[in-house]
């Protein structure tokens, strides 16, 4: 009795640590992944949407997964939902395994599917429906095992396999394995049952039942493919909503599918003596912790999490938070760097601070579309804030077209509604807004935006859309990211007040170490009404003066601050006199433009892209 109580307490503590850990992980270390998943789905609260999902095997599961995923919009809801699902899964597994071996000391085993499910969700290509689908199959498995009467159980099996296939999709394979393993154990146990042996009914029924299950499991998807949906064989059996890349085998999900029957076998074989109960639990807990540590380390992608965090903050226009985040997690790739540079530009800090961060050519300013959805979406943010509305629209549209599961994106549709509104294409904008009116978290925004349709004055006075209209492209040309320099030059000429475009152009030249064109833009700077000239511009100007003057400080224009002059003097002193200048300067002057000029990487002078069509007028 005492032992039982202590096992129960251990289980409570174990459970508490595990689920709290999962919550903390997804809430504080992996939350941007959840926001990322939310933005690349579009869940509509309409009956038609539900019915359209039900028309496909696994569609209900897809609907359920998307229904829950939409709540990822709220930072705390995603971790709560995940914990909830994993908890239910663990409780179901616990009860299932108890049918095989009721030994309470084996409770950590029941956490293994939840652990694997948690790990799987670290990979953005596994949607939440991969877990909900599995859960549906396990619920069916538990109901099945709870049926004592063999004939009823067999009927249930025949009924559950097609039902789970249709509702949950590929996880019916897991249910099938559970049924087989369970029936094998039942058969072993009842083999000694005199009554059944005499009648011979049990054996006879099993000989009919197992082939029937196999025929159903293989045949129904086959019929679906033959008469209902044209699709590859693998997709017919695994079905959608388990992995976003339809052409790739979702290995982790298969592992999840075979885990319950394997655990059933393990607990069947495991025997823990009363006196070894506590040590056995401790060993299991230790192994579990090791598995959790290495498993999450292997599944989690913190580099991706960092990119997604930059993207999430930019999407919400939290420019200062991006800059703050960059202090803690400096950009490690073009995606993050470009989001940081955009934030600096929007915060009016690009000219002052861009060289405080490692710049790596113009690919850190602009993102080319490489037939892939993430870069396109993040690239569209830059184009949007430059007021290149059509180009932003192109990138956003292409992003949605390249979403791996061929779905739609609430974020993209929202952006398309905006670009069309800015462009005065009200009917298309209205179409997108009407779609968003059927969502939970975008409805309010859509309803408000509806009031702008056709109302020129209202749009023109909108702080964001009005600005985009003010800076809109007037003379037509064919946009291509490769021609971004020419594009920005045109924009600055057409709209001298477009400070973001101006700073991007200046940044383009500075990053390319193209000081000739940089100098040519200095007169345009006057129209920008800077209170003080940005520091990196001052540094570049001082450098140019220094090329022709032995005493640049005395020849410097009045807008060069005394700090810049003094800094240059100190920098030049080290640069010209020390053989180890690079490392010495790095300590104090790595954030200067001079340091970038002398030691920075500017090999890439053009935005790199894989597509081959070009166009300019």
């Amino acid at each position, binding site marked *: 009795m005492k032992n039982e109580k202590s096992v129960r307490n251990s289980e409570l503590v174990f459970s508490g640590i595990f689920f709290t850990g999962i919550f903390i992980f997804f809430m504080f270390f992996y939350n941007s992944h959840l926001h990322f998943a939310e933005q690349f789905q579009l869940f509509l609260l309409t009956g038609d949407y539900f019915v359209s999902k039900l028309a496909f095997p696994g569609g209900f599961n897809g609907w359920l997964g998307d229904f829950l995923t939409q709540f990822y919009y709220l930072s705390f809801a995603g971790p709560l939902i995940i914990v909830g699902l994993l908890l239910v899964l663990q409780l179901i597994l616990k009860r299932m395994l108890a049918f095989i071996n009721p030994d309470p000391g084996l409770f950590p085993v029941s956490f293994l599917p939840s652990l694997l499910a948690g790990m799987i969700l670290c990979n953005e290509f596994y949607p939440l429906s991969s877990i909900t689908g599995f859960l549906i199959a396990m619920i069916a498995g538990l109901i099945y095992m709870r049926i004592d009467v063999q004939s009823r159980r067999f009927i249930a099996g025949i009924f559950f396999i097609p039902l789970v296939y249709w509702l949950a999709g590929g996880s019916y394979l897991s249910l099938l394995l559970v049924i087989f393993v369970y029936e094998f154990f039942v058969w072993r146990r009842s083999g000694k049952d005199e009554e059944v042996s005499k009648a011979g009914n049990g054996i006879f029924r099993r000989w009919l039942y197992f082939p029937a299950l196999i025929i159903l499991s293989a045949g129904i998807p086959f019929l679906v493919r033959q008469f209902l949906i044209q699709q590859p064989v693998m997709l017919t059996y695994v079905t959608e909503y388990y992995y976003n890349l339809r052409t790739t085998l979702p290995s982790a999900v298969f592992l999840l599918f075979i885990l319950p029957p394997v655990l059933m076998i393990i607990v069947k074989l495991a025997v823990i003596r009363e006196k070894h109960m506590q040590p056995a639990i401790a060993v299991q807990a230790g192994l579990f912790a090791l598995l959790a540590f290495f498993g999450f380390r292997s599944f989690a992608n913190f580099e991706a999490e960092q990119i997604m965090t930059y993207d999430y903050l930019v999407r919400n226009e939290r420019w200062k938070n991006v800059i703050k985040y960059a202090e803690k997690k400096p950009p490690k790739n073009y995606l993050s760097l470009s989001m940081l540079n955009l934030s600096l530009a929007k915060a009016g800090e690009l000219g002052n601070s861009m060289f405080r961060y490692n710049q790596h050519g113009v690919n850190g300013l602009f993102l080319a579309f490489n037939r892939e959805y993430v870069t396109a979406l993040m690239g569209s943010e830059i184009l949007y804030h430059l007021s290149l509305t059509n180009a932003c629209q192109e990138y956003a549209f292409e992003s*949605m077209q*390249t979403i791996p599961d061929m779905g739609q994106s609430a974020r993209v549709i929202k952006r398309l509604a905006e670009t069309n509104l800015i462009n*005065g294409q009200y*009917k298309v904008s209205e*179409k997108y807004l009407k779609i968003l009116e059927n969502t939970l978290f975008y409805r309010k925004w859509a309803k408000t935006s509806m009031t702008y349709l056709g109302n020129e004055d209202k749009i023109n006075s909108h702080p964001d859309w009005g600005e985009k209209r003010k800076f809109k492209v007037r*003379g037509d040309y064919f*946009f291509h990211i490769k021609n971004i320099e020419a594009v920005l030059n045109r924009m600055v000429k057409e709209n001298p007040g477009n400070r973001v475009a101006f700073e991007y152009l200046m940044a383009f030249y500075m990053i390319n170490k193209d000081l000739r064109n940089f100098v040519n833009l200095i007169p345009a700077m006057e129209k920008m009404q800077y209170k003080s000239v940005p520091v990196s511009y001052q540094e570049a100007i001082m450098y140019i003066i220094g090329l022709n003057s032995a005493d640049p400080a005395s020849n410097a224009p009045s807008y060069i601050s005394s700090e810049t002059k003094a800094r240059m003097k100190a920098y030049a002193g080290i640069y010209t006199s020390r053989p180890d200048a690079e490392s010495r300067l790095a300590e104090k002057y790595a954030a200067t433009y001079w340091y970038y000029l002398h030691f920075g990487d500017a090999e890439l002078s053009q935005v790199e892209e894989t597509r081959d069509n070009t*166009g300019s*007028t």
Partner: protein
Amino acid sequence: MTNSLRYILLFSALLLAASCGTGWKDAEEAGSKPVIFPDYCDVVIPSGIAPLNFRIEGEPQSSVAMIKGTSETLRIRGKEEIIIPVAKWKKLLAGNMGGSLKVTLYAGYKDGWKKYEPFSINISDDPIDPWIAYRLIAPGYETWSEMGIYQRELSSFKQATIIDNRLLPGACMNCHSFQANSPDKMMFHLRGNVGGTMLVKDGEAVKLNTKTGETISNCVYPYWHPSEDYIAYSVNNIQQVFHSVSDKRIEVFDSKSDIVVYDIKNNRLTSTSGLMSEDSFETFPCFSPDGRKLYFCSARKGKQPEEYDRIKYSLCSIDFDSATGRFGEKTDTLVSTEHTGRSVSFPRISPDGTTLVFTLSDYGNFSIWHREADLYRLDMKTGNYQLIDVINSSETESYHSWSSNSRWMIFSSRRVDGLYTRPFIAHMDEYGTFSKPFMVPQKDPGFYDSCLRSFNIPEFVTGKVVTDGRAMLKIIGSPAKDVNFALSD
């Protein structure tokens, strides 16, 4: 049945009757016709069409539609939407062929019921081909998501997949074409890893590699010869670029293009110097119904993309002898850019040979991205052409094709929202007069609002296409058969 149950049922029935109400009978005259979506007011329809379900704009709380035929009247209740029962609709159409239905709408608003002026739905005696085929794809830029070629039974709402990229992940399929509207003779192109031109004749599929050393590209825009032995194609070097101003999106143009004819029996592409001129672009071929002429669009060559808005296509023709596969020597110009100042694309001749409909836009040939693109009718007897006022709109009208009896034309239009292409069907009488077109009906009137794909290349088909992607899968996966090329002159 217990007394209490009876009372509950009676109460429910009363409640139902009260909620439906009879207030509509005392409705105030609206003094105008209703605004409905899709717009089915005063259209001409075939008898073999699915119910024209529609939505009443203005968000009424309830509505009643009285659809009156010669001998019976359908009364349908709804909220915003009027959903017509299929069986009753079919019966109504069958009983009123050659006549018309009078539709009176009553709509209940917060301030009371309104009765709108009735509109008519005219039912033509002319039968329509029972199926249509189209490609569904988002009106995107360079990439595509879910897409495929589908078929739809016009008398119902049934849509079936001919082939899509669910079956062939990553693949693109386009330019489907049927020989004389036959479901048994079809071709389409596949792009991607399994690329090739699929040619299906009576259940037998073959995959062709239509790129030869002598031609610019793989075969592109097709048109079957009435004899079944030839398919005319354009070969194009297609590029697309993206506009920066707010009212334009995409420009698609050819930097090179020619016309070739594929001789199916001899597996050979053939052409003539007149169709492969170095000085001009030739595209969008179309055979005459007797097969003795090949119509096409031709423009003086220009530098692309610099001169993209100065390239304008004329409508031309050249003789073709199907017995020998040879072309005439002379090229005729039917609609010259000198006269129009604009550009012709998609010539399509009615199977009875009386009418040629083409698309006219300001420049170029990819008219779907041209808001100003409209459909024009050319009288093949007189050679006169004119704008078909009744079927055009302020938005793009572009691709079009004929039913096998020449009485119906299906065409693509972006009139609903300016971006997503939708299929419309228009009736043409024996005098060449078109009637107001109707949008292909859907079970849910809101379908087109939420559909994020365009209906491309709508074509009439005389039956259901049986040889679908599944049946062709083995051939699709196998290497394509190379075709040869030979100039006919």
